[in-house]
């Protein structure tokens, strides 16, 4: 669904944000895009959404070139930016004005989302708090039923119960024809949600694997003491002991610690990648 070839993006001659990225993302999946501040996540998703144009290379989404912003492409895309904008309207007027743009928009589905988020549809959008605006936008984005849904830091501003609701909504809205791409600093928010993980740093993709493959090839465990064992690929001290990533030749099952894997990729990228390559 998304094919990115040797994509580079420069803000100026000196400042290169993305360099020679290659990515292929398929529909029916929920991708988590992780990276530190300034890693290039937002620049990448804005290139996919067509609000930034590649300096070099190509980006194709659903067969369209996003930079051309063709109407059929825009009807299949919903992009929720980190700081989302909502116009100066009541929720009901907002629905009346914007739903005709999305051919598969489901008003009943949207009403359910609003009810679950405890938002009164009679309210005015400008009277809502930041978190409530985010909920209105997330609900709208899901009810639009576009084939590509991009969310930049969607859980920022959501309270804990809403984060749980958000995860459930995304899971329920997933569909074989739909691709969801979510970026987040808050790694734990995506833990149970995503099917595939992409880790970026300094404009490069450090890791792009399915969660299933990662848990099959890596073993995540917690111990009281650090280990000198050669099977330990990465370990770090945590509040109640040590968290480790080990090779998993036996294919044992474990709960993936995304935060630990993220830190491991930033600090011991070569070790993790060679372990992933050498294991079946």
């Amino acid at each position: 669904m998304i094919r990115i070839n040797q994509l580079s993006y420069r803000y100026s001659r000196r400042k290169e944000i993305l360099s020679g990225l290659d990515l292929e993302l398929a529909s029916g999946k929920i991708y988590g895009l992780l990276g530190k501040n300034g890693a290039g996540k937002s620049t990448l998703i804005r290139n996919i959404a067509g609000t930034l144009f590649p300096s070099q290379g190509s980006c194709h989404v659903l067969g369209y070139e996003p930079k051309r912003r063709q109407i059929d492409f825009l009807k299949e895309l919903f992009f929720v930016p980190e700081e989302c904008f909502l116009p100066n309207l009541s929720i009901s007027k907002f629905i009346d004005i914007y739903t005709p743009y999305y051919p598969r928009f489901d008003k009943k589905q949207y009403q359910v989302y609003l009810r679950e988020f405890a938002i009164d549809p009679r309210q005015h959008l400008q009277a809502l708090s930041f978190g409530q605006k985010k909920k209105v936008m997330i609900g709208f984005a899901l009810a639009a039923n576009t084939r590509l849904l991009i969310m930049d830091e969607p859980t920022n501003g959501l309270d804990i119960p809403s984060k749980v609701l958000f995860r459930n909504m995304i899971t329920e809205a997933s569909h074989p024809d739909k691709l969801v791409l979510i970026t987040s600093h808050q790694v734990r928010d995506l833990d149970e949600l995503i099917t595939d993980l992409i880790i970026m740093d300094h404009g490069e993709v450090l890791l792009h694997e399915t969660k299933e493959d990662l848990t099959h090839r890596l073993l995540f465990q917690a111990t009281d003491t650090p280990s000198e064992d050669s099977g330990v690929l990465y370990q770090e001290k945590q509040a109640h002991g040590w968290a480790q990533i080990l090779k998993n030749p036996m294919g044992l099952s474990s709960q993936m610690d995304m935060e630990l894997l993220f830190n491991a990729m930033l600090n011991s990228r070569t070790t993790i990648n060679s372990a992933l390559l050498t294991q079946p």
Partner: protein
Amino acid sequence: MNWSSIRLLITRQLKEHMRVYLISLALLAGLLSFMFLLIHNWRDSFTGAVENGVFLIGLFLSGGMFTNSMFKELSNKPEGIWLLNTPATSLEKVFSAVLLSSVVFLAIYLGVFFLVDALYLSLTAQSGNLLGIFSNGFHEFIFLYLIFNGLVLLGRASFMKYSFLKTMVLIIGVVILLNTFNNFTLEYMIPDLSVTSSMPFSSFQFRHSGENIHVLLPSSTRAAFMPFLWILLPLALWGITWLKIKEKEI
């Protein structure tokens, strides 16, 4: 271009800014009434076509501000992304903005102006007529408004912050530059002439034996030149605005 998409874009623009537009409409009527009141109270101090002056001040002031409300989303990132990702083509977005800020605005402005003008004439029991848009070539200012509209829209698409102020400074700068260049060229071409005023692409005035002599372009040249100025120039400016919006990155 899809007409239902244009209808949606116009509805969106009007509904999102309805309150501001209604307040501005009342303000416009108040401003025009105030200017007519000033004229009436100091009628001995004002001579000439003062009604025309009121019309032009109102037209360019309110028209500039209204046009500047088109694409206002481009002045900040989240709103800009929202506008660019709204499912409509760039051409439809620009076309609907032009339609609103030129045709719809002009129709409403003319309505409000003549209403205030008629009220003024009836309340002051004056014998004069309503402003004649088509007398003495005054309608040419309507075309001038279209050029101004194109410039303001182009400014909106080009400058992210303070677009209206920047566009006004540029317009004033270009007008001063053109005028200076025009005067300089006239003095260079006809050194013995004492030119008192000039209008680029149109006319100049000089003094000869104590009399002011006004020189206009020959009517045939003017007839050939005017369609370019009044029609092709606004079209070109709207076209460049379209290209700017099409290539806009946020």
